[in-house]
């Protein structure tokens, strides 16, 4: 069984299962992350958001899921780079003239590029908030007599800078285009395809994961940036 499993995940199809499973898990993470972060829009000076971020940082179940999440992010990145390298090797000499615009979507042809932009964003994003929350010197706020790390003011300060907001907006476009292809593609890689349900999956990928979720994420820095002007 152990050899069967290693053989499975060494094959081209097996590696795509890993891409699909990790990718779709990260899609569900995005939904949860977005729902939590919508607390930023509560006009309460950050009380709800700070309580939420303290809960996320301290709840043992959330902590466990967070480590699973980091593992999937790493798996998705490593597997993605590995697959991209293999694909390059499969065509060492490219065509002088290529016209793929009529046969496939731009997103589907640029998943590695979009993924790399998202990786750069992720590093900046983790440094600004995750690293600060864990190891940084955080400002402190008091809610109902208890002191909390004031994540809200860190976020607001970061988002108030135009260059930072711009980076977020660009990155959300990258995520949108990545998921425009990636969400539905994950199902195809796992062999889930049906003449009735696949169009629904594609619509979900387009409207929820490629448009609505990135737009709401992008709205947060834009909102605080404009507020500060």
């Amino acid at each position: 069984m152990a050899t069967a499993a290693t053989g499975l995940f060494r094959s081209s199809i097996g590696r795509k299962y890993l891409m699909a499973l990790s990718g779709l898990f990260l899609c569900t993470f995005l939904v949860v992350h977005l729902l939590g972060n919508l607390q930023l829009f509560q006009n309460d000076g950050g009380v709800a958001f700070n309580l939420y971020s303290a809960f996320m940082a301290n709840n043992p179940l959330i902590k466990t899921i967070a480590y699973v999440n980091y593992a999937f992010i790493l798996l998705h990145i490593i597997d993605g780079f590995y697959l991209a390298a293999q694909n390059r090797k499969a065509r060492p000499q490219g065509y002088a003239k290529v016209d793929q615009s009529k046969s496939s979507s731009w997103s589907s042809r640029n998943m590695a590029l979009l993924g790399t932009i998202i990786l750069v964003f992720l590093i900046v994003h983790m440094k600004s908030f995750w690293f600060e929350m864990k190891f940084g010197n955080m400002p402190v706020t008091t809610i109902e007599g208890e002191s909390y790390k004031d994540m809200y003011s860190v976020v607001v300060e970061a988002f108030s800078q135009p260059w930072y907001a711009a980076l977020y907006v660009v990155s959300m476009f990258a995520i949108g285009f990545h998921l425009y292809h990636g969400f539905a593609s994950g199902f195809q890689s796992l062999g889930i395809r049906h003449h009735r349900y696949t169009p629904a999956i594609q619509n979900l990928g387009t409207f929820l994961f490629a448009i609505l979720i990135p737009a709401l994420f992008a709205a947060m820095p834009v909102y605080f940036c404009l507020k500060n002007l």
Partner: protein
Amino acid sequence: MKITLKVWRQKNGKTPGNFNTYTLPDVSEDMSFLEMFDVLNDELIRKGEDSIAFDHDCREGICGMCSMYINGRAHGPLTGTTTCQLHMRHFKDGDTIVVEPWRASAFPIIKDLMVDRSAFDRVIQAGGFISVNTGNAVDANSIPIPKEDADKAFDAAACIGCGACVATCKNASAMLFVSAKVSQLALLPQGQPERNMRVKKMVEAMDEEGFGNCTNTGACEVECPKGISLDHIARMNRDYLVSNIVD
């Protein structure tokens, strides 16, 4: 019509190639793309030059021999067609057309526009068969098969192994070809005894030949002259998972 061709010329797999430009002043719009090459080769031979090597056989769109990557697309600007069925009326007078061989490490160049597609044969040899008892031929239709299944299997069996899927795929992946060859047997009762073994062996052979991975861009389905569907790739993805779990 006047056509300028930029054609990839390469002596063999070991020497590097380059583009040569040829001008054809009087091409009939009723010619097929290959007939235009016949005319050009005739002229080259008469001038004592080396003719352009390209694959072709039936010239009826059913054998899968003709290849050619024309103006950035496998088998040229039309979808669902082979190069022999592409006619010059789809080009304009004065056009410059770039013609390249299929490019994939699994399809080494033999000469000019001719590539070695025997990697496909080795993938089929790995598992694209069924076992039958020897002796008298079995009565036709002795095993009932639902019409829908028979139709799906036939759609997969329409694959002519031309390699346009590999040529057009940004990763030079052979998933559409291999999945068609897996599906045509997986859908029929006769294909069941070797079903799990087949998909494992054929995917293994595909990987060994050095084809790329599937990004699900769907370009193969668009460029396939026989309209093989991505449904077959999904079926192979399912079958491969099942075969690895049960075996």
